[in-house]
């Protein structure tokens, strides 16, 4: 759906730039944040329709903490979050994290590296 607003939270500037360009080309509005603390502030102001959230930023697990803060913030509660992470490969984890109402309140988890069209598909499924 054109005109919908996406917030990208990721500390990888190149990755963010490529996503931003792609989303804008598809007609989405885009905001960005490079770490968790500013992500909440940006989200409160921008009121995005969906948030794309990296995990490993200031700390290895910052994105997980941010997902819980989003769920606990009244203005943001209900905003769908897609976790976009390469932590399984980077930290040799036995499995990728999966959504959990209590621990990881996100709609879905996508593992990096991932083609842009799969990210777009996930966004369209959530917000059209």
């Amino acid at each position, binding site marked *: 759906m054109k005109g919908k607003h996406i917030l990208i939270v990721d500390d990888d500037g190149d990755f963010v730039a490529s996503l931003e360009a792609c989303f804008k080309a598809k007609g989405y509005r885009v905001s960005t944040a490079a770490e968790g603390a500013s992500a909440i502030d940006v989200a409160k102001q921008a009121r995005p329709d969906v948030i794309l959230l990296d995990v490993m930023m200031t*700390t*290895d*697990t910052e994105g*997980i*903490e941010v997902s*819980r803060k989003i769920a606990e913030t009244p203005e943001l509660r209900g905003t769908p979050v897609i976790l976009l992470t390469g*932590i399984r490969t980077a*930290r*040799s*984890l*036995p*499995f990728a*994290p*999966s959504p*959990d109402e*209590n*621990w*990881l309140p996100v709609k879905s988890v996508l593992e990096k590296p991932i083609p842009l069209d799969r990210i777009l598909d996930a966004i369209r499924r959530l917000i059209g």
Partner: protein
Amino acid sequence: MFSKEQGDMSASSAPATSIPATVVRRLPKYLAQAQKLRQAGVQWVSSKALAEALGLTPSTVRQDITHIDFSGISKRGYATAGLESTLARTLGADQDICVVVVGAGNFGRALVLHGEFARQGFRICGIFDNGAPVIGKKVGKLRVQPMSALPDVVCGQDVDLGIIAVPQAAAQQVADHFVLAGVRGILNLTTTHLKVPRTVAVVDARVLASLRELAYAVRMIEPRF
């Protein structure tokens, strides 16, 4: 040093078994008593004797033991060896359990050096910290490893349990690392309420909270003089 009786089984992380958490907290006491009796050559023990030794009532003892599917014999009581092995099997104490500790401060080091864990079947197979000055330092037979090594140790050594012995502010972050690495049970020594998936169990060993409770109880006792 810390027993499950001190802890609270968080409601969101109760084990899959049907044994109530309050009963589970008493089972290690029964196990220790059964071990002690068997080692002393006592073959049978009554619910009354168990109750007296543990400060419980005989009916509580009988009720608790029905939960582990073990029964006694009229006028003789419970066979101590059978009671011990059934309790051990129920609590998973019949096999070694690998445990890792996060936090190489005084608390964490003391846990690693505490020999009783190994004697009770809890093999501490790693101690981790994020503080550069302590990485590589020896604690007993172990060396403190960085947090980045946690997943490899957990997967490689089939670690089931993790102990959080870090300052309160870092507790949730450590719990997140445990969950990601595949640890299935967490002993939380901080007062932080941990958020974990339903697939991970948490027991809070609330040492500080227990001390506060104790201090309050002491204040409520009438002065001796």
